[in-house]
């Protein structure tokens, strides 16, 4: 299929435009949006079947001139790294449309913005031109701002602008870094593939300027840091994580799912896509502190914060901070296991946390609060719901047989060979995770049923429909991780091979 990636990206955008022309009928708009997300999902399945797992090259590449004078082109393509994210995006977008059926306010606006967001996310993962990548990266912010700001909770305005400002701060630094790379490549181009091929050209001579000369930093290091800050805000890595709990708590359920499931992945995706292959010397130098140590700190800090939360959604949000720490830790290891584990963790976190946010949404829709202490004994009232919750929670804490286990163990195995201390710290996060999740299960689901909620309705068909696909993926990947890992391995090995020669010791 020609131009399949373009179709996947722009069908939702066209859908968004069409929604604005539909009559003001909520039911029609909802089902229309659901239908719009089906073709990208089917195309994603087709991609999954036809993707060549033996090569690290970009596949399904589309390359058109856009602005020839500046060598800006419209280049799309996927490799093993991006295809997993494309699959995740297509799936979660489809599911989240159904999870949004409860939206009553300005329905047309909501679904139009949601589809725009979908297009932006798809574009980020498919773009191979750095300029195009940046445009998609930024385009995504606008719908997100409105989705949180208009349809969010009580403090939505604060959360929306905080998210917006944080991300923009990161992206302007990224823009400057992109420009600096552009002017270093001869002839000037934004094509990521050319930039990767030029990896050795980016100067590694120590800059004569203070403070860089005292740190021994070169052009590569400075650019690496600028890109890293842009991506770290999205991950979100400590200390840039504070927008995340706010945004998650205020966002409507489906948006939380997208935020955790897709947007956070863009941070680590960006680092693997650009920092690793384009700036290998700096990556080798910086990885220990900026990815490894920071990742381990994220794991523990996020888990401890999660443990202290009283709000169920905030707990899940902080657990995201913690779980994204595994991704960073695995990336820093430069071993096959570590890197594969990291990207698998990105995929798994998308599905598991997606489930967890959907589950929180279910109980919030019924009780209109998310206070952990305010429930109790839900297992007796809503047995099916509790069963699915248990699956998601156990996957999140890394129970063998479920997907979270595979990625976490791969990360820890990979890192152990390089940084035993960080691995021990990271592994202790597993215990903390088990701690807060089990404690939550105990407080919310076990014990005597809360009198107030004796009549709470069991999870309904639509809600089950949104959860089941994710649950199935969690189990399949847990039993046979090869489904995902086979796609990743070749690409990640080739990325790894670029950095390894520059490692010290």
């Amino acid at each position, binding site marked *: 299929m020609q131009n399949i990636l373009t179709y996947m990206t722009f069908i939702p955008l066209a859908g968004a435009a069409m929604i604005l022309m539909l009559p003001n009928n909520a039911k029609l708009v909802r089902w229309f949006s659901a239908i719009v997300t089906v073709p990208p999902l089917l195309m994603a399945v087709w991609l999954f079947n036809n993707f060549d797992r033996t090569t690290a090259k970009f596949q399904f590449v589309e390359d058109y001139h856009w602005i020839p*004078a500046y060598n800006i082109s419209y280049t799309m393509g996927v490799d093993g790294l991006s295809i997993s994210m494309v699959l995740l995006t297509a799936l979660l977008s489809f599911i989240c449309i159904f999870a949004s059926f409860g939206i009553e306010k300005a329905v047309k606006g909501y679904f139009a913005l949601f589809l725009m967001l979908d297009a932006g996310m798809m574009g980020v993962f498919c773009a191979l031109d750095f300029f195009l990548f940046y445009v998609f990266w930024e385009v995504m912010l606008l719908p997100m701002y409105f989705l949180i700001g*208009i349809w969010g909770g009580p403090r939505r305005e604060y959360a*929306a*602008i905080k998210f917006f400002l944080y991300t*923009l701060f990161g992206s302007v630094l990224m*823009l400057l870094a992109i*420009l600096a790379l552009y*002017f270093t490549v001869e002839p000037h181009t934004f094509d990521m593939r050319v930039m990767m091929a030029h990896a050795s050209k980016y100067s590694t001579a120590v800059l004569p300027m203070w403070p860089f000369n005292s740190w021994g930093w070169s052009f590569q290091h400075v650019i690496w840091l600028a890109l890293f800050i842009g991506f770290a805000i999205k991950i979100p890595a400590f200390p840039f994580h504070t927008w995340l709990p706010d945004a998650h708590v205020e966002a409507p359920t489906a948006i939380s799912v997208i935020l955790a499931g897709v947007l956070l992945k863009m941070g680590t995706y960006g680092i693997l896509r650009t920092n690793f292959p384009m700036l290998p010397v700096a990556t080798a130098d910086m990885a220990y502190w900026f990815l490894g140590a920071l990742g381990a700190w994220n794991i523990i800090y996020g888990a401890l914060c999660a443990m202290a939360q009283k709000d169920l959604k905030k707990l899940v949000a902080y657990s995201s901070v913690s779980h994204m720490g595994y991704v960073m830790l695995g990336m820093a290891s430069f071993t096959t296991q570590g890197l594969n584990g990291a990207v698998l963790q990105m995929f798994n976190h998308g599905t598991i946390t997606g489930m967890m946010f959907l589950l929180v949404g279910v109980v919030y829709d019924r009780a209109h609060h998310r206070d952990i202490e305010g429930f109790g004994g839900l297992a007796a009232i809503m047995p099916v719901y509790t069963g699915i919750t248990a699956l998601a929670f156990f996957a999140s804490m890394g129970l063998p047989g479920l997907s979270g286990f595979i990625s976490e163990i791969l990360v820890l195995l990979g890192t152990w060979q390089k940084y035993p201390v960080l691995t021990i710290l990271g592994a202790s996060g597993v215990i903390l995770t088990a701690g807060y999740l089990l404690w939550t299960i105990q407080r919310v689901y076990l014990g005597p049923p809360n009198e107030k909620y004796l009549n709470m309705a069991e999870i309904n068909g639509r809600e089950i429909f949104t959860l089941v696909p994710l649950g199935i993926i969690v189990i399949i990947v847990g039993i046979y991780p090869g489904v995902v890992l086979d796609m990743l391995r070749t690409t990640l090995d080739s990325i790894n091979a670029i950095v390894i020669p520059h490692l010290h010791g």
Partner: protein
Amino acid sequence: MDLKNVASLTFFCPEIILSVTILLIIALDLIAQSRRWPAALALIGCLCSLIVSFDLYSAQPGLLFHRMIVLDNFSIFFKVFSLSATILCILMSIGSNEIDKVHEGEYYALLLTCTLGMFFMASSSNLLMAYLSLEMVSLGSYVLTGFLPHSRRSSEAALKYLIYGGVASGTMIYGMSWIFGMTGSMDYAAIQLALSQEGINKAALFIAFIFILAGFGYKIVFFPFHMWSPDVYQGAPTPFTAYLSVASNTAGLAIMIRFFFPGMSKLLASGDWTATAGVEWPQVLLALSMLTMTIGNLCALNQRNVKRMLAYSGIAHAGYMMMGLAILNNEGLAAILFYAVVYMIMNLGAFLVVGMVSNVTGDEDIDDYRGLAWRGATVPAICLAIFLFSLTGMPPFAGFMGKFFLFSAVVKQGGAFAVLAIVAALNSVVSLYYYAKIVKTMFLDSPLPEDKQVTMAANNFTLLLPLTFLTILFGVYFGPLVQYTNYSLRFFIK
């Protein structure tokens, strides 16, 4: 080509057409009583002048009127630019309630006079001509600022503007007199020749440059000559504020580019410029640029009046555009021209919506925008949001491309200019806060019971939708505009 007075007239048609239009409006204003024709006449005059201006591209570049005026691609660009801004402003004025209250004939005659002055600002190659053209624009602007009868704010603004303008231009002509004293000439080319000789007092020359900068600075609105702008923006009739914010500001940049680049610098083959006479004015511009954008953005953060906020945002944008001057390369200048065009589109668009809202509510306070999207004005609210995000520099809107080219010109220079790029980039983040504040008020806040329904007449959209379309179009397909701005960057230097 170096023409005498009569021979020059052939290449002076756009100006002649404008002058005739102005005189016609004044003369007919004495006779006819109907309300609509001055606008129509002004519009026709501008369109004719625009067409004739394009025709000038076929002419040889050269000097007119005994080396007073230059005809080259750069001056034609600014003719086209000023005329476009004027046409948009006339269209805005037609739909505005404020302008209905005043003598329309005088209003349009003065507006066109300002435009005529801007033609000269962009094309003068002589200190005297530069000063006169600047004053011509200023005088018209003072009157138009105070044009609302019975509005204390409007009169106050005009008085402030007049005093600031008087001081600034006085300082400027004093600086010019120093240069004349040192070089014995008013002509840019002769000055440059004289300055490249030995024995010029660098300190004196530097001081003269600083004095001259005062005049430019007050037109472009950069720090520390920016104080007049919020009051004037708030007090002046909204269509004229829009005009002032794009046309007058950019004409100031044009006169400054003309003075510093073909005038005081030499172009190298690489597309970089070197400042002659070894005076460090680029460093001054660099510092002023950073200060201007930072102060503009920080002051805008807490404004409650949307016009004042846009005034401070205009100061910040002037700061961004000055980056292109400070880095001394052709990319920077081309980026300024590109930025000027997209800034005109998005800023006029923003003022258009502000004018539409104040037509209904009578004020520009940010509270008047509360829940605007849910009060019957969804389309204007969406358009304003697009203009504001474009002003922030978000893709896929034109403002992003403007900033992109400016940043890329700065990054290309590299080295210490990286600091400038970082300051500018962080400033865009700061600016998001106040632009988004308006968007927040329009979309995220719910209207209170006492907020009126805002209904917009259909004719309001005839200008709004094309501007919105252009803001998006130049954000995704900007190739032809880039080519045009690069093409416009050809100076006639003798």
